[in-house]
């Protein structure tokens, strides 16, 4: 396992983000320890996806700071985040639809492939070796996710559940230190959810990957996460272990409020 536990890999402090008049995030602070599975929950529109977008530099907050691997920044840049080991999946699958599952996962390894275009055009020596080595790594991921049979299929033709799996594969291909998953189980049936849970836990245990995930299914959240942060209307409501959060009155109210109205 990389680094020590009980050390914050990521710390966001007083993050505020607004779109015109919409305050998506207000003064949100929390941290993610190395090696943990951290869940972010909250009702629709609470600002969960926005938070992930801030962490990997897709949105730039107006206030606050992001400390990742002990480097403090006012904002991230997508490219810098990817290079520093942050990978993610999206709420609405963002795969490259015209490419095969294999090619999609291979794109996750752009940072590991350095040979310039002349080498690639010739496809000999170092460029060829580089392609083989990365292909072997990606085949490992394909085996892990049990998607050998669909390697060559353009992802646009795959069913939803498998697309989610390929997208996870693309994120894993980057060998991330921090993996951000935006509703990895949304829209899946029970069996697919169980598979996905198993993959997430395996990634966390086998590779020691730190995971921050958004999930609506409370059963799943309680099962797989070490700690939970609850957002509502852009503000942090609660933060703690699943048991603590479940007992929190503010959280119960927020969820009941949503259920009522």
């Amino acid at each position, binding site marked *: 396992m990389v680094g020590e536990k009980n050390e914050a890999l990521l710390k966001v402090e007083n993050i505020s983000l607004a779109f015109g008049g919409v305050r998506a995030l207000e003064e949100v602070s929390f941290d993610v320890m190395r090696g943990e599975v951290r869940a972010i929950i909250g009702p629709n529109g609470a600002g969960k996806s926005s938070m992930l977008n801030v962490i*990997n530099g*897709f949105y730039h907050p107006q206030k606050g700071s992001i400390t990742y691997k002990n480097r403090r920044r006012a904002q991230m840049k*997508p*490219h810098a*985040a*990817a*290079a520093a080991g942050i*990978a*993610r999946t*999206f709420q609405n699958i*963002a*795969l*490259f*639809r*015209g*490419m095969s599952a294999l*090619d999609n996962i*291979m*794109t*996750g390894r*752009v*940072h590991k*492939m350095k*040979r310039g*275009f002349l080498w*690639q*055009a*010739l*496809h000999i020596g170092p*460029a*060829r070796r580089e*392609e*083989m080595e990365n*292909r*072997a790594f990606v*085949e490992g991921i394909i085996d892990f996710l049990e998607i050998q049979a669909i390697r060559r299929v353009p992802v646009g033709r795959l069913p939803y559940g498998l697309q989610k799996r390929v997208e996870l594969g*693309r*994120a894993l291909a*980057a060998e991330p230190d921090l993996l951000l998953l935006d509703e990895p189980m949304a829209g899946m049936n029970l069996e697919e959810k169980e598979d996905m849970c198993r993959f997430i836990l395996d990634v966390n245990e086998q590779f020691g990957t730190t995971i921050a995930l958004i999930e609506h299914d409370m059963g799943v959240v309680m099962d797989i996460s070490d700690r939970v942060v609850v957002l509502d209307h852009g503000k942090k409501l609660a933060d703690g272990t699943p048991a603590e959060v479940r007992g929190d009155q503010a959280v119960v109210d927020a969820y009941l409020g949503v259920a009522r109205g």
Partner: protein
Amino acid sequence: MFYREAGDFKSTYAEDQALFPIALDRWFVLAAAVMACGVPLVASEYWLSTIFLPVLILSIAAIGLNLLTGYAGQLSLGAGGFMACGAYMAYKFTTAFPELNMVVVFALSGLSAAAVGIVFGIPSLRIKGFYLAVTTLAAQFFLLWLFTKVPWFVNYSISGVPTAPPREMFGVPVTGASASVEARYYLVLALTAILALLAKNLVRGRIGREWMAIRDMDIAAEIIGIRPLKTKLTAFAISSFYCGVAGALWSFCYINIVEPTAFDINRSFAILFMIIIGGLGSILGSFLGAAFITLLPVFLNNAPALFNLQISSTLVSHIEFMVFGALIIFFLIVEPHGLARLWQIAKEKLRLWPFPH
């Protein structure tokens, strides 16, 4: 079972990643190569000079545009302009350094076109689709205007349209009117084969995947760490290189004259149609499209005579436009992967024959 993937197992990734992983594909390619080399023995000079030469040269340009539009998803209407770049720069290089090997001249003219391509590719960071097409159209008109108006490009020749100077390789004339059509054919064939191979290598490696990622979803590509500007400019540069070489070959090995009308807006559209009909995102499709668009008018012109019909030549050219229009609409709507995809489907049918289950 003529054509099979099943049973053709790969034991290493190297084998699986070979250019043509399926044995029968390798035979197809080998047969095509042998046939291409043997063409001058059987084809008449007329066929060589009016069909095979232009098809090969236009295939290079179509590959170039396909890399940019089919793979990287950047719509361009400037292919003709970049071809003109290559033609005029080849003229400048070979008149300034007459001893320079023609392959080097063609490479340098390709590089010049690539540099110009990078400049005109810069707007692609901010604008997409239709608006990008309009800026490439501006490139097309600007470049042709430049080459027509600035006499330096034609060494102040009085006519303004200089003939391609005769040059030799290994003691054999390969350019200009004095070169035999066979010599020109073999030079063009060799360059086409090499350039097609290099393009195939590019698109199956990291760079090809980056291009396709930008094409399919540029935001996701950026988030996994692909740099959009660098990726798009690489596509513009390499694409323009191919178009530049094609333009130089067109002037030096085919029409033997360096003139702007050969590279006007109609040329740009013709090459765009080639990749739409041949298949966006396919190297094979670039060849099929170039052959199709070159052969269709020949066929339509000869068809009335074949069937003993009296049709005026103006009507034939009208029919030509209608057929092109219909085909383009058909492929855009029904089969955006073009002839290359139809070929693939045919292979799949063949593979399952005679047990289609």
